[in-house]
């Protein structure tokens, strides 16, 4: 039997992991919810942003915060680019084609990154303190990531609920055609959405590069989990995505300690599948 203190530690680790997952899920969920297309390559955009921060900080010696801002800008640009070049031509296609076009982008980004930067994994080394609380250790970096993802969640919530363009984004996600009849160009709303979603990828990139090594296949480890968190949270529902991140991370973390690392993920995925049947609208929405 495992010592309860370590279960507690696992729970805390779960919370910290949820910060990482929420960062990845929030932007994707915005895009997924509004444009109704799963960007399979979303985490690979994050990967590109991570490379940017790496190069700016380690090679050109920029301060991290400035590199982070650059990463946000690059993310927004990438979001715009993906929407204009890939999503726009296939808006009317069958869902499977939409899924696969972004899947092709995934292949493209992974191999182009290999081509440009080789498969070396790169790390930004950052000496941040580690907090020790009652025999447990908390990584400062992860705490920051968690705090920023919490802020991002609140920020996006306010953006969608309290601003005019945010409301328009929600309206488009509910009925694209009706919003066109109001005089809104859906394409422009989509562009704003993709840019904001892309900027979130930039935020995620800046925070992940100080926790993980970046390499061209970075996206593979997180991709599937990120999609599932979006759906579990409810499309376009920022609070839901955050809650889903916490739920999935806790299952992964505690399951990993009690059984084994893989079984933690197995349980998380099974929970996802079952939740799809029980609460298809997301964790926070009752069937009905």
């Amino acid at each position, binding site marked *: 039997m*495992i*010592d309860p203190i*370590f279960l507690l*530690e*696992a729970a805390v*680790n779960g919370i*910290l*992991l949820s910060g*990482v997952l929420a960062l990845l899920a929030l932007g994707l969920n915005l895009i997924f919810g509004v444009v109704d297309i799963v960007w399979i390559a979303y985490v690979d955009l994050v990967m590109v942003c991570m490379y940017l921060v790496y190069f700016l900080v380690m090679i050109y010696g920029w301060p991290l915060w400035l590199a982070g801002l650059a990463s946000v800008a690059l993310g927004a640009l990438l979001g715009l680019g993906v929407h204009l070049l890939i999503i726009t031509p296939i808006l009317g296609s069958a869902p499977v084609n939409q899924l696969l076009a972004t899947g092709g982008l995934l292949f493209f980004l992974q*191999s182009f990154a*290999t081509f440009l930067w*080789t*498969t*070396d*994994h*790169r*790390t930004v*080394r950052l000496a941040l303190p*580690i907090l*020790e609380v009652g025999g447990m*250790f*908390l*990584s400062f*970096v*992860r705490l920051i990531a968690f705090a920023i993802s919490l802020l991002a969640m609140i920020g996006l919530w306010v953006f969608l609920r309290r601003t005019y363009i945010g409301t328009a984004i929600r309206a488009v996600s509910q009925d694209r055609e009706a919003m066109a009849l109001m005089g809104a160009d859906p394409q422009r709303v989509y562009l704003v959405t993709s840019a904001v979603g892309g900027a979130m990828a930039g935020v995620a990139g800046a925070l992940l590069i100080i*926790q*993980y*090594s970046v*390499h061209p*296949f970075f996206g*593979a*480890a*997180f991709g599937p*989990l990120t999609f599932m968190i979006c759906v579990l949270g409810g499309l376009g529902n920022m609070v839901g995505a955050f809650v889903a991140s916490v739920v999935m991370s806790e299952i*992964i*973390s*505690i*399951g*990993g*300690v009690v059984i*084994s*690392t*893989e079984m*933690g993920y197995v349980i998380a995925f099974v929970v996802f599948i079952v939740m799809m049947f029980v609460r298809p609208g997301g964790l926070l929405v009752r069937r009905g």
Partner: protein
Amino acid sequence: MRTLRMMRMLLGLAGAAALIVGPASRVDAQEQTIKIGVLYDHTGPFSAAGSLNCWRGAKMMIDYVNERGGVLGKYKIVPIDGDSQSKAEVAINEAERLLNVEKVDILAGVYSSAHAVPLAEKVDRQKKFLWITTAISSKVFDGRNLQYTFRPQPTGTQFGELSVQYIADYAQERLKKAPKDLRLAIIYEDGAYGTDVALGNELKAKDLGLNVVLKEGYSINAPDLSSLVTKLRAARPDVLYHTGYNPDISLFLRQAKEQGLRLRAYIGHGAGHSQLDKLKEAFGKDVEFFHTLDPIASQLLDPKKLRPGVGELTAEMVKRYKAQYDANAPTAAIAPHVSMGFNNLWVLFNDVLPRAIQKHGGFGPDALAAAARETDIPDGGTMQGYGVKFYPPGHRFAGQNARAFPAVFQIIEGKFELVYPKAVATAPPVLPLPASSPFAAR
């Protein structure tokens, strides 16, 4: 006597088969070029994890031989490169292409044990010659009685056994505990490589009566290893045995540090743990006093302990590596993978091929296999210190080099120092982890 008759019979059978397959190699012999398929991973995660360095070593050796007029002064080596892309199915496709389209006489290389296991079986069935420079899993040979596959490289199980022996030897003296009172934890990537090393750890620990408190595998693609760290903390090991590639060990070390994992010794086994530059880039001084096991990176060996002439080759390798790939690399930091590619091909070009041509009439698979079986290089006869003598057909590990051995290295003052076996050691080990290490037990 009996083995001899059996060998002759096998050779006859194989010869007959070779006639059916086609007399390609005999034609090539007249042209005096030897085509060699060089199969490594140039893309995908394995390439940065050491495969590329192996290829560099192999490439430098081929250039070296050709510059000196080729094998026996007249057979030029024509390398044909293949890229396994870090995927087993691509490795198989590339092997098919190299063997059947490019018609290479020899297939050499193979970084990943996950590729070597299926490849060896398939290539051997086609009765083609395979020379494995890097992949270490003992499963490549175990009980399969391969006839055309040879590997001068030590096996993973040997890695695992040696590292446990090392700790057992120093337990009382340095760790102030009887070996049986030590708590060992074994974690490993669950591919061919990690599994094999971990098995060696476990077997040796059992053998010596050491106490393994945790043995757990993980997948190299796991996005988070914090639960593994928590489990380790709960198990309170003195010594951690870890076998992994690179992004995964970086992730593990980072999370281990963040979560306050405390140890008295940390022992990695090659691959990611041997990439000093990567480790230092990510962790700086934190990796000081970590161990790794590998066949000895040639430049770390004292040339005086080797056979005459071998030391000069090492100097050649270092010179070429700096000229072609990394002018600023400290000599000691050149990864052992470079040596594996360089040295193990040297054994092929310098020992096996000449004998095959002079004594067995060419460099078809059978001539090569016959020549390889006669290889008998004493200890100290290669750049990595070990000798070469392959287990004979019928042996459980037929084709594996019986004389290969790895060695234990420790990062001391930012450099790899050879600390075990004691006979070849260049420095005494630092055990337990001193208090300056963030991982040191308090």
